């Protein structure tokens, strides 16, 4: 069963996602803040449950916190990124369509690279970045010649998908990193609280 803090963080994540806000750092800072506040509450003599409830109440309604992030410009960054992804994808498709361009390996590399960079910058819904960058080459092929063999060009999407998911995984690993408790043991947010109360 999830602890009160984990449930709160899951609600906060949902509220952030519903506003198109994606930043694992926000959740990690919230997790650290709530752990600190809970620890202080326990030190003041509260039970773990009461300390968690107080920490959550003081942090604020997840809806209000997410709204505040939305109003501080995070949504704009997401939209700009999407526009940049579409522009990049169109540019790559244009270059790939040039008669003088016959290096499919470079196209595949560039699709994977840019999707990876976008997946790393906004590590959420990597399929959006993969499609925004990679859909244009198969789309162009199908529009020019609607056939099953053109549909096979959808295979091209494997490259940006691989890149975007790899970028997301790298970013999440870098931002979140391994948690280390006071005893030096790798731990999760929940077991940090467990070790705190013992």
């Amino acid at each position, binding site marked *: 069963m999830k602890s009160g803090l984990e449930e709160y963080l899951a609600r906060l994540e949902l509220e952030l996602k519903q506003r198109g806000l994606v930043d694992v750092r926000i959740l990690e800072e919230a997790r650290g803040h709530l752990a600190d506040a809970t620890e202080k509450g326990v030190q003041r003599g509260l039970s773990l449950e009461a300390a968690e409830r107080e920490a959550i109440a003081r942090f604020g309604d997840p809806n209000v916190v997410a709204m505040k992030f939305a109003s501080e*410009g995070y949504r704009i960054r997401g939209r700009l990124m999407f526009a940049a992804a579409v522009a990049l994808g169109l540019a790559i498709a244009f270059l790939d369509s040039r008669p003088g361009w016959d290096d499919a390996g470079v196209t595949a590399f560039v699709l994977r690279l840019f999707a990876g960079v976008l997946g790393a910058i906004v590590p959420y819904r990597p399929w959006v970045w993969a499609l925004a960058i990679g859909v244009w080459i198969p789309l162009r092929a199908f529009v020019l010649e609607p056939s099953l063999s053109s549909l096979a060009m959808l295979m091209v999407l494997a490259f940006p998908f691989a890149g975007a998911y790899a970028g997301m995984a790298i970013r999440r690993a870098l931002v979140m990193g391994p948690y280390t408790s006071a005893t030096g043991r790798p731990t999760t947010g929940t077991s940090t609280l467990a070790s705190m109360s013992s």
Partner: protein
Amino acid sequence: MHAERLKGHLDLLLLAAVQDHPAHGYAIAETLLARSSGTFDLPEGTLYPALHRLERAGLLTSRWSEVSGRRRRVYQLTAKGQRALARQQHEWHDFSRAVRAVVGGPA
């Protein structure tokens, strides 16, 4: 104090809270509460959007750091932030002096 009243002053308060030494979000919230004797009792989660905005504006910088055995994002004033803080402190003192002069009451 109602959060609405803090609008326009929050940046100054946050910059001032990390003036003496770098601090993570929870410590900043504690500092605001303690220095204001409990008056600035904001929903603590709403401090983070403002901290992130100040960082994007180049007034703060942040890094992950080990605090009491746990990883915390620690915020620090940049040179630009120090200049902004000095300017905002000056403006605030002028403003509060003028308000006091009009409103009266205890200094």
